[in-house]
């Protein structure tokens, strides 16, 4: 399995000096949050730097939430919703797609790397996709480095 989990030892070492990104993940209740749970049930290991906030639908992710997180120093924001056509609320995820595309442009104008904001479709059956997404997003954020607002931990 392609788990990129640092082992406990390196983790302990990393604490205190190396960059530990702060990541917020918005998950919709029906697909992505369930996918994250399934990753747990399947014991898929992944980096521990993200914190999940559950919303009923990815379309509930108000642009204000994303901007607020960046203002408060988050290093990356991931929004995860149902796959196109799978949305529990019929078409909420299509709105999310448009909003995130615009927000990426907006945060760039504020001086943030647009890759600090990502949208992913993760279904309730895709525990492994959740894991891979967290591994790759964490890596992306680590490469971009701490937020200009003073991110990291």
């Amino acid at each position: 399995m392609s788990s990129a989990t640092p082992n406990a030892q390196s983790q302990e070492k990393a604490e205190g000096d190396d960059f530990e990104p702060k990541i917020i993940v918005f998950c919709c209740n029906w697909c992505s949050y369930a996918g994250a749970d399934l990753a747990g049930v399947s014991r898929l290991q992944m980096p521990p730097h993200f914190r999940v906030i559950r919303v009923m639908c990815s379309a509930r992710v108000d642009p204000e939430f994303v901007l607020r997180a960046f203002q408060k120093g988050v290093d990356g924001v991931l929004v995860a919703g149902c796959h196109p056509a799978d949305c529990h609320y019929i078409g909420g995820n299509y709105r999310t797609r448009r909003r995130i595309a615009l927000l990426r442009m907006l945060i760039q104008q504020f001086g943030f790397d647009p890759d600090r904001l990502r949208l992913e479709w993760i279904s309730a059956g895709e525990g492994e996709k959740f894991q891979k997404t967290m591994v790759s997003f964490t890596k992306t954020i680590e490469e971009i480095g701490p937020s200009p607002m003073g991110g990291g931990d």
Partner: protein
Amino acid sequence: MAASDKTGAVMVVGGGISGLQSALDLADSGFKVYLVEKQPSIGGAMAQLDKTFPTNDCAMCIMAPKLVATGRHHNIELITNADIVKVDGQEGNFTVTGKQRALRVDASKCTGCGSCAQKCPIETTDEYNENTKVRKAIFVKYPQAVPLVYSIDQDKCIGCGICAEECKADAVDYDQKEKDFEIKVGSIIVSPGFDEFDPRLKAEYGYGVYQNVVSSIELERILSATGPHFGTVLRPSDGDIPEKIAFIQCVGSRDEKVGNEYCSGVCCMYSIKEAIIAKEHGGNIKPKIFFMDMRTFGKEFEEYYNRAKDEYGIEFVRSRVASVFEDPETKNLIVSYVEKGEPKEEEFGLVVLAVGLRPPEDAEALSKVMNFSLNDDGFCETGAFTPVSTSRPGVFVSGAFSSPKDIPMTVAEASGAAAKAASEISSARNTLVTKKEYPAETDVSEQEPRIGVFVCHCGINIGGVVNVPSVAEYAKSLPNVVYTEENLYTCSQDTQEKIKQMVKEHNLNRVVVASCTPRTHEPLFQNTIKEAGLNPYLFEMANIRDQCSWIHMHEPTAATKKSKDLVRMAVAKSRLLESLENLTIDVNQQALVVGGGAVGMVTALELAKQGVKVHLVEKEKELGGNLLKLHYLQSGDDPMEYVQSLAKEVTSDPNITTYIGKTIKDIDGYVGNFKTTLESGEEIEHGTVTLAVGGQEYKPDGEYLYGKNPGVMTLLEFKAKLKRGEAKGDSYVFIQCVGSREDGHPNCSRVCCAGTMTAAIKIKEKDPDAKVFVLYRDIRTYGFREKYYKEAAEKGVTFIRFDDDAKPVVEDKGGKIEVRVTDEDTDKEVVLTPDNLVLATGTRPSDGSEELAPMLKVPIMKEGFFLEAHMKLRPVDFATEGVYVAGLAHGPKFLDECIGQGLATVSRAMTVLSKTTLEAEGIVASLDETFCDGCGLCVPTCEYKALEIVPNEKEEGKKLVDVNVGLCKGCGACIGACPSGALTQKGFSDEQIVAMIDAALEETADKQEVKQ
């Protein structure tokens, strides 16, 4: 209510998607339900599927909410691992005796944490994964299983005792005994599903001999993200990704040699689906499907087939495969087949056998115990007008047990069976259901938050990784937290009592539990605090197991830190939580049925039987609809006799008011509160609407000389002539797919093939020497209808296949009809000069659907049929609550299927009409009127049409948005669109989510210490 002599409970036997739907409908309309399942968990076959056609929805994603709702329902009792032994009594009052096999785990103690299975030393093959994976001897069928209770596989367990030792909840009970039960119910529904055909019986395909020959259900598990390779398509022999995959259709279907003459009806579609998904998973995989007739007859199915060919490049070969041999070196497989008379061979890396559906193994035993009849093929026998009734009164059937069928038809039948089961015992509604009483709620709105935090060890699931005592200690330091506690299992029964006690002792007005996932456990804790007098929305969870300890097992420090963060975030939100009220909506308990054809009449009668006042509107001058034009049914039943008896019943039923020859001018309102105005001026108030507006036969515009030569007619026109003995001459040509499966009307009309067989057989019965030719593209006599195809062929009907791009040419030669067609098999042109040319034309929506749709805010598809809420699991519902669709208005289908859908709408409508008030969602959008300027940006974001711009009554000339809580589903999509912050979502308000964001990014106390 007058005392009833019937029992107000129903037993549903079989807990697949069918049983779940029946159980939920009945329990939501005032009946106690006992759901009996022979396996330890409910879910059935659908729970094994990766995706579902034609939308490629993830099966578990759409099914899990129904599983959870069933498991939690106050009036559904699950009896798993159980068999029925005896059924005494008669309709209205049955006594069912059964046996529940020992799980060897105490279900009331098991928390489903899974520690036992982690440590169990015995590995065995996993049936859920079709033996592509292993499981332990103590196991749960699948991760999302309901009930989430482990059980011991008695054949595999060695009794080592490790699980018992490991279980901190003390749930393992090796000495548990089988339990007998005896239950009184008024009706019974059987929905045991189906078994797959054993492909070993087709020895020529090498299943069980060659490793790389797999069954379609095995491939389903291989494709699944929860399968053996996390969704990567790897072949069994060497774990390589196969470059070429062959799908062989009709394995165990349409095959006299193995005794199954019927068509299984679902395999064409599931093979296309599996081929598409395999290709999506591995871009270089080249699937090829070997088939006899491509039977993509359902709604949107043909377009799915077209996309598979055109967009995914999946190859289709029309041929029955003769044999499969393995190359012993490479383990590749050589497939031998004949295409257009020419023998061919081709090598594949993996061969998939599309196995057919068989009656379940215990079908015969069940039929004996319950005393109902099976048909010749071993499925449950039903009638053309009674699709969900068994031969025993009071016992109903749904799903694949009565004939092979797909999920949407199964779900519709499940609701239909629930309607029939309820009708019989309608007088006993609400006699056995219980309503839970709760203490009066404390008003906490003026109180300072006093938060209690309960941190769970979950045995060692959390505690083994996360330092739970330090998390609990940390929680104490958070503002407004006045009490914290650690629990071994926060979800156990004794902890619930403890929580209630602590709420009282410490005057807690908010509760936070840090444990597993709110998806499964929030309702339990919400119920607990409700019992302690708190509003259930004053509860918040921190998921420190599934999304922390389990995914950071080797990083205890980081996981502990994360747990503290998650608790801090939950507490931050909790501080801002408010009591929410589930608003109630009054319900007008009358129904409107639009359309007085067979479906509309069946629907009205069944609603009336359940005591509902029904208003039936028919625009034509008489009741009957299309059935008045249908002169034959394949079953031999007389449609005219049926429709006349229905009409008589309808007009004499005191609960039904008919409005014949009348049309609807407008419908206004929402679930429970509709108001309909007829063109004639009458006004009707009602709580639900069923659209049974039917469809119509397509009349070609001059194609194939239609309307130009009197010998050319549509199938229905021809049948009328045949019935009246007016058909001239002795030669007949049928052309199939006229106005179907072509540009503008890409989908199949489903009924024309079997309709043609009926007509062809009738001709041959009257005149065995008649010359009958059927020109076709694919013969789609699915299910048991295959026998009519066979019968027609046996009676001497000639079938000529033409290529999709080479339609027959019809010319008028001095008044005589000449048909020229190229036979695809021989590539030779055939010239026919029939006396009668019959066009099997497609089904079109009825006129007027387009005017009705906007009145009810329901969608119409491009072909003009109504689009249901969900193609798979909500086949007769709309997203707009209280509005339902059945019959041809939904899409082309046979009479028995139409009736099944009509009955389904009754069951769905009764979940509304059986109540005087409906409870709206608690988590809904709400408006602060002072900030709304009525810009309307939010309106198009609402998929449920719950938002409407109305005049602001307080300010002249201004507007504002009105939120209809009866329609709002609480997704929150509108809130992000509101530019002025006037809209908010209760339970997920901006302030609450922002508080969580801020808390997540806060510098924590221990972190500050480090920095200092």
